[in-house]
């Protein structure tokens, strides 16, 4: 039996003036690259902070590799690496020393002599940083992001959590980080949770998605299923949408309510949908075809403009 890497049950975080995360329940399987999608303040970072132990849940539980005892989870955090908002680096130290601090914490023996530090820097595309005397404060944002990922890779984590890893990067930097993440997933089988605003970018590598809005987890969907829902979409308005949905599902159409609107996905022939509903005696007041991408889907799902 496959044990999920992370399994959360009604995970909740309340702050004095707001409910940052409201009973989030989800499961993440090994090898997935999960895109965490939500507006600013939706609860993405809160969820990441709870999973990494930086924040303490108000209620609810979660397990890491099948272990849910909070005391035991502390030690298991060694198998999780994260970059929350900004890379956690000592700005007054150089890249090599930064990596050394992480190696010491992870109990890696002789990381300099064994070439461990050098290997990590080379893996993230910073081979020169091994001998670079400059302190990290003087690094570019892209270099810091890469170094943050190198730090995260120390100890060979099973799960990598990245909060907005491409924030502030130029298109070239975004591409490099994406390629790096894909390589990590492919080479080392690392499961990833990646939150991002750039949905088009996420859609290039995510294998599943978690959509969050106003602290609520509104949907967890695989990239495969999402693909069916995006693309060409038929939007319908009938005198009985519930009945129409039931009929369409019975006829094996990919139909669902998205943001209160009846949508039929992955339709090859619009006329077949029309015939089915008319034959069943339903009146169609509106029918139009739209091209839907991940961004459109998200906006419909949360019922507003993405900020």
């Amino acid at each position, binding site marked *: 039996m496959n044990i999920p890497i992370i399994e959360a049950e009604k995970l909740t975080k309340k702050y004095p003036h707001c409910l940052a995360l409201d009973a989030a329940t989800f499961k993440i399987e090994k090898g997935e690259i999960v895109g965490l999608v939500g507006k600013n303040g939706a609860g993405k970072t809160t969820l990441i902070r709870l999973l990494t132990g*930086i924040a*303490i849940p108000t209620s609810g539980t979660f397990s890491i590799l099948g272990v849910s005892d909070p005391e035991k989870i502390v030690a*298991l955090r060694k198998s*999780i690496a994260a970059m929350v*908002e900004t890379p956690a680096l000592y700005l*007054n130290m150089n890249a090599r*020393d930064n990596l050394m*601090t992480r190696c010491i*914490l992870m109990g890696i023996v002789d990381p300099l002599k064994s070439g461990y530090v050098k290997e990590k820097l080379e893996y993230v595309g910073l081979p020169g940083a091994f001998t670079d005397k400059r302190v990290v404060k003087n690094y570019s944002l892209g270099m810091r992001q890469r170094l943050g990922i190198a730090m995260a890779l120390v100890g060979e984590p099973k799960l990598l959590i990245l909060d907005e890893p491409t924030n502030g990067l130029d298109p070239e930097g975004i591409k490099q980080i994406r390629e790096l993440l894909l390589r990590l997933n492919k080479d080392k089988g690392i499961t990833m949770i990646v939150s991002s605003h750039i949905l088009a970018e996420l859609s290039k590598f995510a294998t599943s998605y978690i959509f969050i809005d106003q602290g609520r987890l509104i949907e967890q969907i695989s990239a495969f299923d999402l693909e069916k829902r995006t693309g060409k979409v038929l939007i319908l308005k009938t005198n009985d949408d519930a009945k129409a949905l039931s009929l369409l599902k019975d006829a094996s159409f990919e139909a669902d309510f998205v943001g209160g609107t009846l949508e039929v996905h992955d339709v090859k022939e619009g006329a077949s949908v029309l015939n089915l509903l008319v034959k069943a005696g339903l009146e169609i007041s509106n029918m139009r075809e739209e091209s839907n991408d991940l961004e459109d889907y998200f906006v419909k799902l949360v019922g507003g403009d993405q900020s």
Partner: protein
Amino acid sequence: MTDLLKMYLFRLFKDKVFWIFLGIGVLIVLLDTIFYGIATNLLKNSRLNVGNLLVISSESLGAMDLMSKPSIVGPAFCFFFLTREFHDGTIRNMILSGKKRIDIYVSAAIVALIICYLNILVDEAFVWSLGPIFGLPTGFSDAAAVGRFFCSLGIFFVLSLMFVSITVGLCFLVPNAFGSFGIFIGIVFGLTLVYTLVSVVFPLFVSNGNLSSSAYQTFEESLTVYQTTYLEGFSFSGSVDLSRFGWVSLWASLETVVVGGSFLFFGGWKFNKSDLK
């Protein structure tokens, strides 16, 4: 915990500011010793009483002395060293390396103690080595002086423990270097003010016969930190009544446990319960 200590020490010895901080301490000691030697030699042939002058100097510079190594210099560096973990967000690396929060906290306290003690020891090593050259009395003229030195050193370290505890507690209660250091300075000045007021007001009561001198002495000793006795004893320039060391040690320990312990407890409690940035 060993990993945490190793990491903190690695960071400490790689930190240029730490070496500058130690260097400044040594420089102050060096200048202090040189000036003492010059002043003693210059005043030898004058009509002024050198002993009295030193007492006056010691009194007027009392506040400076009190705020020196144990209470300000060491903690000042610790504030910047420890709160960097919050400022740079690297405290997250510790959490994500599977360390318990309590272990992180205790390691920070141990490292802060090492910093403060190391600072004192390095400075004193320079006093011992340079002192005789510049005519500074070492105080090791008899067995009592040696005993006085070790007793003073013990109390000095106990008091440093209190300041370190307040420092570590504040670093985790207010994880901002300037904020926490500001509060710390406030506490030190607050206590100085209390001591000054007590020093002025109590003798008046004693002279009026409303208060016995022993009661005054007891109250004064309750503010151990500000007892010049320790500083005089430690710098060998004053005569200390060795018979009172037991009593004074008890006060120093009690203060350390109560004041330092409270800060240390609340800092750890807050760190264990609260969310990090």
